[in-house]
Every structure is written in structure tokens, then in C-alpha cells.
């Protein structure tokens, strides 16, 4: 008996709790199973899949920074065909909501991905990645401009009945403009934020540290930026927000709910502490119970009413 309802419903996406493993940090859900049951999560967002296989960027692909991590993986993935053959069948026994994260290099790519996956029965939602900073074309470009963001979201919307989450890039002047465009084009929810473009220079070699020169910053270093973007977006759009960026403890998660997130993503924190989802879920519940809340909805957006 908990007395506190952790369940979250975003259109057809039903999750037992608001915790989602962030895309790209959790493989296809298979890796962490030895450490945490997948059922600890409300949902798992799989590594981005693109129409064709991608080899990704040159190494080094990672650079640790103060309370942060720069990555430039470059969307390495086996491509749609191999994903469906080798990984999708295993999603049957994930015991959590399976969110397939898709990306592409043209509006047609997104259309193709959406229509190909629409009929799959073991997928609970699609997350549309228009925010990857580590690829030359496509990716973040679609998320940097309201018209192209809307065009991609609309193309996916027209080709699937699955719940549709648009994952936005923080590397824009005004996040609310993009969020409104995505919601207007039919997104059921918005994920905020993908990584912030950054770079690091090796003072010994005097060259950029990452093989890709620039990378995406994640981890606690970006959290205040992410909280601000969730807060601003909550004011402007009506669809639920999935907040992410540097969440490592339950306090951070609560901060995102207060800013307006209906669910939260945990990415980089898994690397240091694979038990993060378990600890964070317990902390959220204890906080809510101590304050006499009966459901998560009581918390969402509370920072706006004061």
C-alpha cells in the first residue's frame, strides 16, 4: 500500500511510474538488466534508430567535464531492418513501456520509419529525435526551426497511431516556439532536453579533444538549463512534457515536476549509478507522501502557481 499513485498516462502511453531511461544511454534495454529489472522503469527510450545502419563518429567519443559529459557517438545504430529483426522481438518481455526513438535525414526518412513501425505490437510510443547535435545533416537541423520541426512531426503523425513524443534540442533561441510548432503538428508529448552543443580542447595536443570536434553536453552541468526550458515550455504548450537533463537524485526529479514535467528521463546518471531509477522512484514517493499528495499530477507545474 503506497497511498501515492505514480502512474502516468500520456495518450496511449501508460507507464507505471514517471521514470524513463533516456535514449542513447540504455542501449536497447538489454544492457542494464543484470543490475536493475527493466520493470523498475515506467518506460525505456531505446537508442535512436535510423533507416540505414550508421557507424557513428571517430573516437574519442566521450569527454568528461565538471559534473558533465560531452558525447559525440554519432547515432551509431544497426539500422531499421536489423533493429526489427534482431532487437524488436525481445521487446515482448521488457515489462515496461518501450519507446522507440527514431531519426533520419529527410522528412521522407521519418515518414518511412513511422509507417514501418506503426504496426508493431510491442512498441508503446515513438520518440522523434529532431535534436541530435552529433551528425552533420538532419538531426538537430530539424529541431532548430519551427517549420521543419512541424514538418517532421506532421509526417510521423500522418503515418502512425502510436503515441508520438517530439524530442527537442536546447540549442535554439526560443524553445517555446519549437515546442508550440511540434505540439501543433500533432505531438502527444514533448521531451526536453537533448544535449547542449559543447566542446573541449586538449591542452597537450592543442587540438579538439573529441573525434567529432564538438559534442553534446549532458549530466548535472546542464540541469538548470533543462529546468528553465521545461518551465518556459509548460507555460506555452498544453501537451505533457517529459523533462530530462542531469537528473541524478530524486530531488532533481521533483524539481522537474514542479517546473511542469509530467514524466522525467534519466540518462547519464545511470553510468555512475545503475540503481538510480530505483533510488529516485523511492525518493519521489517519500517526498509526495510526506506532503500528503495522492498523485503525481498534484506536483506537476506547482512552481507556476506560487
Amino acid at each position, binding site marked *: 500500500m503506497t497511498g501515492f499513485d505514480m502512474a502516468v498516462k500520456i495518450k496511449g502511453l501508460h507507464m507505471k511510474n514517471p521514470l524513463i531511461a533516456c535514449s*542513447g544511454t*540504455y542501449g536497447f534495454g538489454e544492457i542494464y538488466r543484470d543490475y536493475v529489472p527493466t520493470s523498475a522503469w515506467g518506460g525505456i527510450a531505446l537508442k535512436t534508430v535510423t533507416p540505414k545502419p550508421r557507424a557513428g563518429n571517430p573516437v574519442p*567519443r*566521450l569527454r*568528461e567535464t565538471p559534473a558533465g*559529459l560531452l558525447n559525440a*557517438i554519432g547515432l551509431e545504430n544497426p539500422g531499421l531492418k536489423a533493429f526489427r529483426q534482431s532487437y524488436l522481438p525481445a521487446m515482448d518481455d521488457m515489462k515496461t513501456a518501450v519507446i522507440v526513438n527514431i531519426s533520419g535525414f529527410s522528412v521522407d526518412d521519418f515518414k518511412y520509419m513511422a509507417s514501418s513501425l506503426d504496426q508493431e505490437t510491442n512498441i508503446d510510443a515513438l520518440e522523434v529525435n529532431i535534436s541530435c547535435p552529433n551528425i552533420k545533416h538532419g538531426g538537430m537541423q530539424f529541431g532548430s526551426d519551427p517549420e521543419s520541426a512541424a514538418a517532421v512531426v506532421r509526417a510521423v503523425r500522418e503515418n502512425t497511431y502510436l503515441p508520438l513524443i517530439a524530442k527537442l534540442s536546447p540549442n535554439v533561441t526560443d524553445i517555446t516556439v519549437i515546442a508550440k510548432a511540434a505540439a501543433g503538428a500533432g505531438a502527444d508529448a514533448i521531451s526536453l532536453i537533448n544535449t547542449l552543443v559543447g566542446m573541449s580542447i586538449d591542452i597537450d595536443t592543442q587540438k579538439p579533444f573529441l573525434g567529432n570536434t564538438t559534442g553534446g553536453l549532458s549530466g*548535472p552541468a546542464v540541469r538548470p538549463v533543462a529546468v528553465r526550458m521545461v518551465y518556459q515550455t509548460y507555460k506555452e504548450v498544453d501537451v505533457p512534457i517529459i523533462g530530462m537533463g542531469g537528473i541524478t537524485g530524486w530531488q532533481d526529479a521533483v524539481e522537474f515536476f514542479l517546473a511542469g514535467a509530467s514524466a522525467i528521463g534519466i540518462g547519464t546518471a545511470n553510468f*555512475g549509478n545503475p540503481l538510480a531509477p530505483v533510488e529516485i522512484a523511492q525518493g519521489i514517493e517519500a517526498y509526495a507522501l510526506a506532503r500528503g499528495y495522492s498523485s503525481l499530477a498534484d506536483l506537476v507545474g506547482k512552481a507556476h502557481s506560487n
Partner: protein
Amino acid sequence: MLSQEKILINRPMGPAHNSQGLFKLVLHGRVAEEAQPGQFVTVRTSPSSDPLLRRPLSIAGIDKKAGEITLYYRVKGQGTTLLARQPEGTYLSVLGPLGQGFSLPAVSPDPASRTANPAELILAAGGIGIFALYSLLEYLLKNHLTDRIPVTVLWGGLDKAFLDCATTDLLFQLPKNNVVLCTMDGSYGYEGLVTEPLEQLLSAGRKGRETMVAACGPNVMLQAVTELCQRFYVSSEICMEEYMACGLGACRGCVCRLKDETGGVKHGRVCLEGPVFTGEEVVWHDRI
């Protein structure tokens, strides 16, 4: 596994006046049960999120009976500096054993088996690469395989002070002639790289013998070692290093290039498919 391991020893290696920033760390817990030579662990050096990531360290010694693993590390930056301050008797969060280790000669070889033990083993190490090879050497000595298989260690370091400090008792258990030391500055042993004595060994009539080379060190050295081995038709296993985040295969940060079945190139994750790869499968040219 994710384990809280008790720190039994966490002290500078070598003589007090010459620790070279090298530390010995002995941990007691469950990781030893499953640990294999060549595998590694990742340790959390701080309970806070700075530093954020775990630090990968090779398993250098395994005592399954006592439930102990030994790691050796060089204090480099923030993470290892914090690690060096962890008091003995406290607990450390350890993830592991991780990755694939070296293939091990069988203790009692099955005569019917087609995979015979190598006729001879050469362990080639550059710098602190010796730490990963200590676990293999320990296995060979503990199981008295060194009585049956000639084992030679080739180890190169910057200077004598480094070698003095990073050495352990294991090396003294081999016949003296089977340990070949090199220094870059000539302050001890051969002056130069380990690849020079390796080439001499391989060219001295070993061609075609069932010699096996196991190596760990900087990438340039590993590349030179595998190229030499291929030239002499000798098989090799190399223990690689790359920047990693999850250490489990999820993030695809630590990839290296491998030959695939069709003659093309594929990626291997150093943390999951490695850190030990065969010298034959690694593709060195044009880094990805």
C-alpha cells in the same frame, strides 16, 4: 555485478621515497568470485556527481578463496586523486568484473581437445599496461603452468624508477632470463621499446611454433606488437583502452575497429567485446 567492496589496502606502491604516484588497492567482496585475468572493474571515486563517471581499472590480481581482487592505479586526475584518499576499511562501489579477458591455457589440457595449450607464452607490456598482465601471470604461476609452458615477460617503462615501483613479486617467480626489461632512457635493461626484444625473440626460430603473445600498453605499442606477430605468424591477444562512460556496452562510447566476417570493418566495444581482442581482428589504419 554491482558490489560494495571493502578496501583492505590502498597504499602507494614501491619504496616510500619513490611511489611514482602508483597505488595498490586490494578489495574484499563478491567481484573476485567471477573475475578472470584481463577483465576490469569500474569504481565510483565519489558519492557526488563530480566526477560523474566511474573509473575503469584492470583486475591485476584475483584471490577467489579470500574473495579479494587487487588493482593498481596511477594517480592521474580528479578521480584517481580521490581514490587515493579513500581510507582502508571503508567501502567502494565496484561494478564488475567487466568485459572479456585473455584466453587461458587449460590447467589440465584435454588431449582430445583440438585447442591445445600454446607451446610458449610471451607477455609484452608497456608502462602501466603491466597491471592487466599481472592477472594472467598470476594465473599461470598459481596453476603451475609456468612449469610446462615457457613464459617470458617483456616490459618497457620510462625509466628504472618507474619499473622499480610498478614491479611486484610475481616477476621474481619467473626464471631471471625470462624477464626482459626495457627503459626509454636506458637507465635499466634494454634502451628502447619492448618491440625490439620482441622482434628478437620471435625471429629466433619461433616462426610457426605455437607461440602466443599477450600484450597491454599504449595503442602505438599494441599496433607494433600485432604487426610483428602477424609477420612471424604468431597469434596475439591485446588488451585495449578507450574512454568509456557506462562500461557495460550501452552508450557505444568506447568503440574500436574490427574486421568483420565479410572483409569489411565493424565496431567492437572495448568495454563489452573487449578489452582483450585478438591481434588479428583489430583494424589499426584510418581510425574511425
